[in-house]
């Protein structure tokens, strides 16, 4: 592992950031629709969606972190 590979990796991650933003509307929509299939009351739907969205972001962050760490393995 050299300094340049880390710089390249950071550069690649920065370049991918605009595409990461596409996940945001998807997380919102998936959480809302899934929450709506589990509740009938709008307030409960929103609460469930919020929990779901936090879970999704957390899960994706863990995967992101693992892949980022794996990138140093060469």
């Amino acid at each position, binding site marked *: 592992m050299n300094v340049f590979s880390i710089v390249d990796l950071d550069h690649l991650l920065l370049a991918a950031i605009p*595409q990461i933003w596409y996940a945001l509307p998807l997380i919102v929509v998936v959480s809302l629709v899934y929450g709506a299939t589990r*509740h009938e009351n*709008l307030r409960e739907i929103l609460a469930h969606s919020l929990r779901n969205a936090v879970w999704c972001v957390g899960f994706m962050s863990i995967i992101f972190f693992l892949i980022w760490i794996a990138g140093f393995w060469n």
Partner: protein
Amino acid sequence: MPEIVYPQESGEPVVVDLKDPYWAAFLAWIWPGAGHFYQKRYAKGFLFMICILSTYFFGLGIGQGRVVYASFKPGNLRWQFVCQLGVGAPALPAIIQSMKTKKGGDPYWVLCERFPADYSNSSLAFHKITPENNNDYTGETIKDGFMAPPGGMNNPRRRSRVQTDTLGRWHFEGKHYFEMGTLFTVIAGLLNLLAVYDAFCGPAIITPAQREMLESKKKKKNKRKSKQ
């Protein structure tokens, strides 16, 4: 008229009138939210309609109207369309386009025309025909249609190659938007299946009795683990 009553831990029980669930499920499939409107569950109807349709049309938009098409031929099996079809009527024009282009016809709603594979200037093959590169070309062209399969499929001599190359050109011109558009439309279709389920069976609310049962199962599991 099946009516489902969900007892709650506190407050009044939740009552959901599904009316005719088969008809509601069909309506929910054909237009996201329509089944819930039929059941007079307006808030959820609006929620499903806005979430699912905005996702679908956003995906279709960034994919420039090309990401939803029906093609099940060898060399271009568009399996994603099965998922996209979950969104109902908004995906149906793809079937019309597929039928129209099946036997060599031009698609409806042409988006652009391209130079054919055997164009004399081979570096321009599959490229869009514009006023700048036209050179008074009058021969047969490949036509991109709105929600139509990749053009050039009906050239019997070079069928599979031409088809694949047109699709490749779409990927090249659309950059990551083609894949993102596909992803958004696929997710919209799959989400509508959840909405159809909700219209047919009602919400999957966990009742206090079910919660108790789940908790007792968890406790039993924990006890077994602690014994081991």
